[in-house]
């Protein structure tokens, strides 16, 4: 047996004893990065909601929130649900008396930490996560004020929590603008 075989055994033993130390050291170095990544991911999800919700809600609400005929039923709040209905799809572009198309009827509600949307006769589907609160202010008939707050949906490990982050935005409802002359043709 060559003399260097014993050296290999010693090397292996040393490697086995140092290896776990290296692994522990590596994990020790990586763990803070991992927890920081975890926190950043949670905050990114929260901010994504705050960033994407206004433009998408603008688009959905602008479509369904401008009734051509009966304004009283167009935008209304029923409990925690915001209903928007517009009869805008009839022959030659004028009302046909129903709101059965998906873009003619939109409802929005908060359910748990989800902001859910229902279009047409379908069921509520989650649209945005991490929603802490949602409120629609209908006091001004021309201006729909929406207040949304989003929070991280996971407990943060390293970053101190600052609580829900709010955002408020106004939507101008074009069919509710005042006219100098009456709208009866």
């Amino acid at each position, binding site marked *: 047996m060559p003399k260097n075989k014993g050296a290999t055994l010693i090397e292996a033993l040393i490697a086995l004893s140092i290896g776990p130390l290296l692994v522990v050291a590596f994990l020790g170095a990586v763990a803070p990065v991992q927890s920081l990544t975890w926190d950043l991911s949670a905050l990114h999800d929260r901010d*994504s909601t705050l*960033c*994407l919700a206004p*433009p*998408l809600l*603008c*688009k959905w609400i*602008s*479509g369904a929130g*401008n009734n*051509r005929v009966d304004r009283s039923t167009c935008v209304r709040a029923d409990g925690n649900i915001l209903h928007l209905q*517009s009869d*805008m*799809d*009839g*022959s*030659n*572009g*004028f009302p046909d008396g129903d709101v059965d*198309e998906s*873009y003619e009827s939109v409802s929005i509600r908060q359910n748990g930490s989800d902001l859910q949307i229902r279009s047409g006769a379908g069921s509520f589907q989650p649209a945005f996560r991490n929603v802490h609160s949602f409120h629609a202010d209908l006091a001004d008939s021309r201006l729909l004020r929406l207040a949304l707050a989003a929070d991280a949906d996971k407990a943060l490990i390293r970053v101190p929590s600052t609580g829900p982050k709010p955002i408020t935005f106004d939507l101008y409802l*074009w*069919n509710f*603008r*005042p*006219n*100098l*002359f*009456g*709208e*009866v*043709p």
Partner: protein
Amino acid sequence: MTREAGFTFVAVMLMTLLVLSLGVYLCVLMANQSHLTSSVDSQLYSLVLAENGVEYARSVLPHLDLNRVLAGLDGKHSGASTLEWRNPLTFDLARQMEPDAWSPSCDDGWPAHEETLLLPQGYPSAGGGRFYIRFSNNPLEPAAEDKDGIVLVRSMGITGANRNGFFHSARNNVSLVEAALRQERVFDLQAALVLFGESATFEWPGEGFEFNGNLNPAVGIVGYGELAQNLLNSLAAGQGVCFQGAGGSPSMREMTNEYLASPVYRRVFDTGFWEHFQDQLPAFVDTRLPGLRFYPNGGDISGSFEGFLVARGDFTLTEVQVEGVILHLGGGRLTLAADTSVRGAIWMSNNAGDGSGNLVHGPLDLRIVGSVSVAYDAGAVRRSLTLLPPTQLGWRILFPEMKL
């Protein structure tokens, strides 16, 4: 080199590959998020552009000759046979077109001024977006013949596709908005003095005044009652010649049937028309010249004015030069005193609802003192009408899957 060294090399290569793969994955993820966000932004921007197009249409509509716009500069409507004929562009074309290279093949409904299309290549905006607008007649009338002043305007907002880079896209973002607008011509008066009511009190001491209708009558009478007789009875001998214009002397025409037959003018018989107009008027007045002024409690004014002058109650104009339209809505006397001249027309009415939808007329009261001239000028009347904002009868977003 030993065999262990080769293993280390492979291990290092694998680790490097792993780290690089993770980096590339993260880069793609971030780029994808960025693309998604910019795509949502671009869609929303196209919607905002389309909304701006409707506002542009609102601003130019009062100045347009609607029948001329509907027929286009060639004076010939190309028909309403294609599915999306009311749109400035079809959705398919809008998604694929290069805005810089495109121009409309049909001028029907495209706004024009003095034989030139206003927006043949759309209205360019920051960021490379554009909007295109097109007018079409409301569906209750023939495509090229407007009588009621109601038109549809469709505005298409287009934001350019990203045709470069990793996330290449060949499609533009497109939004289409439609508004039903009415050009307000109800006060496009056809006589120097138009009286709407049933009875009136007139005072014109002296002969130093003149109502001149030019090719139109000096006085137009709207309503069933004794207005015409009241006017004739109030004139002293020789004062008939103070009313010059079409017809006899004094120049006067009964216009009630014309008003009832017109989809534009007959609204003055609706009590809701007057209630709405007077309720909303304070919110629409401005102080510019030419402008829209409202004196709800009457008053005395002097100087010069251009535009649309509305008053209630006792209202006296002394040494005033008016170019445009005067509306006196009753509740008192309208007095035109020394050296006052009006180039345009005057409307007088005094009515209110009786609570059950009927219009009740009170007596009109007009006093002319001294040297007063009222000369009908259709151009001045039309110019003052351009100060009245169009009425928006509807607004909606159109999607490709809708009945266009």
